[in-house]
Every structure is written in C-alpha cells, then in structure tokens.
C-alpha cells in the first residue's frame, strides 16, 4: 500500500470567523474541508455552546505549497480581529490526487 505525504491544517476559531475562513479556502481552491462545532478555552475565556459564541474547528488536507499561502493569508487578514488558532500536522493518504 503506497501512502503519500500530505499536510493537515487545523483551524479552531469562533464561529463568526468561519465564513471568512471558508472564503479564503475557496479562493485558494482547496479540494475540500471538514468542520464541526467545538467548545474551548483560551486567552479569550471559555467559549460556550451558546447562540452567539461558540467555536468551530476546520480541518483541511492539502499540499505543502497551498498550505503556506493559506496560513499566511489567514494570519494577515484575521489574526487581529478574531479568536483563532491554527496548527499543522503531517498525514498520509492513499489518493494524493484528491487533495490539492
């Protein structure tokens, strides 16, 4: 079984920032993403599961070259305005052509 190296970008942010993130992902033409609601505690206090404040976690499998420009754009346009953290991990997939 041949596995291909790929990056997994994980973004956790308040729900109000969600659409901006999707816009950035779409702009960079990622092939897909997965997301779900989470709760969290961070520098900006506990985010409950309320109507106005909850967190969402977004996961994107993507190639190394897209990674950099996406992270850079999120940093530049969103870090100052929203509660947001992101981290990158390594993963292996079977069909690398599915994740670009």
């Amino acid at each position, binding site marked *: 079984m041949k596995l291909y190296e790929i990056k997994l970008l994980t973004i956790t942010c308040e729900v109000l920032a969600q659409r901006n993130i999707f816009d950035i992902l779409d702009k960079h033409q990622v092939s897909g993403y997965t997301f779900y609601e989470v709760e969290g505690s961070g520098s900006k206090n506990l985010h*409950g599961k*309320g109507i*106005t404040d909850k967190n969402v976690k977004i996961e994107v499998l993507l190639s190394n070259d897209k990674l950099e420009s996406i992270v850079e754009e999120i940093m*530049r346009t969103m870090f100052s305005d*929203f509660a947001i953290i992101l981290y990158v991990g390594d993963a292996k997939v079977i069909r690398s052509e599915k994740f670009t």
Partner: protein
Amino acid sequence: MGIIELIQSNLLTPVVLFFILGIVAARIKSDLKIPEAISEFLPIYLLAAIGLHGGIEMRTTGFESMLIPMFVAIALSLIMTLNHYQILRKLGKFNIFDSYALASTYGAVGAVTFSVGLSFLKNQGVTSEGFLAAILAVLEPVSFVLAIFLTNMAVSKMVQKKKQTLQKYSKDDQNDPTAYAELEASIKQNRSFYHVLRESITGKAIVILLGSIMIGYAIGKEGFQPIKLVFEDLFAGAIVIFLIEMGIIAGKRLDDIRNVGPFLVGFSIIIPTINGVIGVAVSTFLGLSVGGSVMFGLLLASASFIAAPAVLRTAIPQAKPSLYITSALGITFPYNIIVMLPIMLTLSSYLHNL
C-alpha cells in the same frame, strides 16, 4: 396603576422571573442550560408566530394604514443611528468602528424584546396593530446597512489619504506589507458591503418573519385555526423557556459590564429611554392604539443582540463585540423588559387620554 406598581406587577410575571432565574443560575455557576437546538429553534418559532399574527391582522386592516408608520419608523431609526454615533464618538470618545457598531446595535431592533413586549401587553389585556410585525421585519436591516455603509465610507477615506501619503513620500513603501494590507482591506470592505446587505436580507430572522407575515396574510384567521394552538397559544410558554436561556447568557455577561465603562452603561439606559419615549409620542400622534404605541416605542428603544453580533462581526470586524453584546444584552434588554415596558404603557395610556 402608577408606574411603580406596574413595574412591580411586571416583575412578577413568569417572563421576567424566569429571565432572572437564568441570571441567578449563571451567577452561581449552575450547569443549568437550555440545549442549543432548543434555543436555536425558539427564535425561529417566535418570529413565525409574530409574523403569522401580524399577517392575519394586516388582512383585516389593509396596507394603507401601515405605510406612514413604517416610513416614520425607518426615518427615526436612521436619525437615531446617526445620533448615537455622534454621542458615542464625541462624548464617549469611542473609535470609529466601535461607535458605528454600537450606534447600529441601538438603531436596530430586537426581535426577542418585541416578543416579550407582545406577551407583556397580552398580560395587561392590551392589543396592538398587526402591521408592527412588518415594521419589525423592515427595520431589522435598515440600521445595519446604514452603519456599514458609513463605516465603509470612513475606511475608504482613511485608505485614500494613506495611499496619497505613501505615494508622496516614498516609493519603496509600496512593498510595505501594512500598506498593502490596508488597501486590500478597503477592497474587502467594499465587497463586503453588498455581501452584508445580502446576508442581512437573507438572514433567517427576516426570511421567517417576512415569510410568516405573507403566509398569515394568505391564510387569514380561518386558515390559521388548525395551527393556532402551536403558533399562538404556546407563545407565552415558549418565550418563558427562551428567556431562561437569555438570562443565562446575560448572567455570564454581567462580569463584562465592568469593562464597558460607566459611559456605555449610562448610554445603554438613557438612549433606550429617550428613543422609547419619542417612539410612543410620535406613534400616538400618528394615530396608533395604546398598545401599538408601546410596541412602536419598544421597536426604537430595543437594541439588537442576536442579529447584531452575526452581522457586525463580519461587517465591522474592527469593533469589539464585547462592547455591543454586553451593553445590549446585559443592560438594555433587562432594562427594556422590566422598566421601559411599564413606563411606555403608562405614558401611552396618558397620551391617549389627553
């Protein structure tokens, strides 16, 4: 009944008491909460009920009687938004973004507050004009759109200036990332204006409210019969359940009040009072009923705390949400439903008896 007695008797209604119970639960750090699915569903239900009721009433009264009050409401809402901005910017020394965000939060209307108002009037045995639901629907986006438009104008001007300065003094600064970012922001901002306008109008609150008004208008009293139990009789109980959750959210915000500063606390009480009184007086003059004038006043007195965060967070991301959410939900909402409603009913009764 004097104002004090009315406030006292209003305090002892389930709506207010369960709201307070929610606050207490949050303060003593109880794990009491209404599951999210329920508290997301309830506003939709409340707006559907308000809309159906309004639409059915409008079938009887027709559109004409609605037109003047609606335009007056829009005009007042716009004037008040501008007025709030001046007060916040000049007297409160808030920055442009916070000023516009707060101004529109208080220029906009609160659907939850409106629901509580209807339930308050029902308790007092007073009726109101059905078309007020339509005014609620139209008023929702008006104030946001104005605030966002003005913010965009302000940002554009700022960017324009900076660009000129940049071009004048140095050529290398072109590569300065901040300058680029700023420019990009201005473009983003302009795009987001139509974006926001679109989002405000297709937002769930407006869609369900306008839709239900039309449906109410189409089906009339008779067609409403089979669903009256759910969309009218359950209303009072449903709002009680929703207010438990509102109380819990407000209770969690109480700590933040310290951070908003005394100026904003004063603003959150005085502005609704003035706006509400103006609303009652103007609508009485326009010929609305005792209850209709109270609801008209409430539309102007109320601040938006469900739609506002969603719209403003993307539209004016530079503004601090803790300011507008805390003041609108933590101060103005309780003040409106506990104190202003009785004041406005007393005032309205008085004016109608002149």
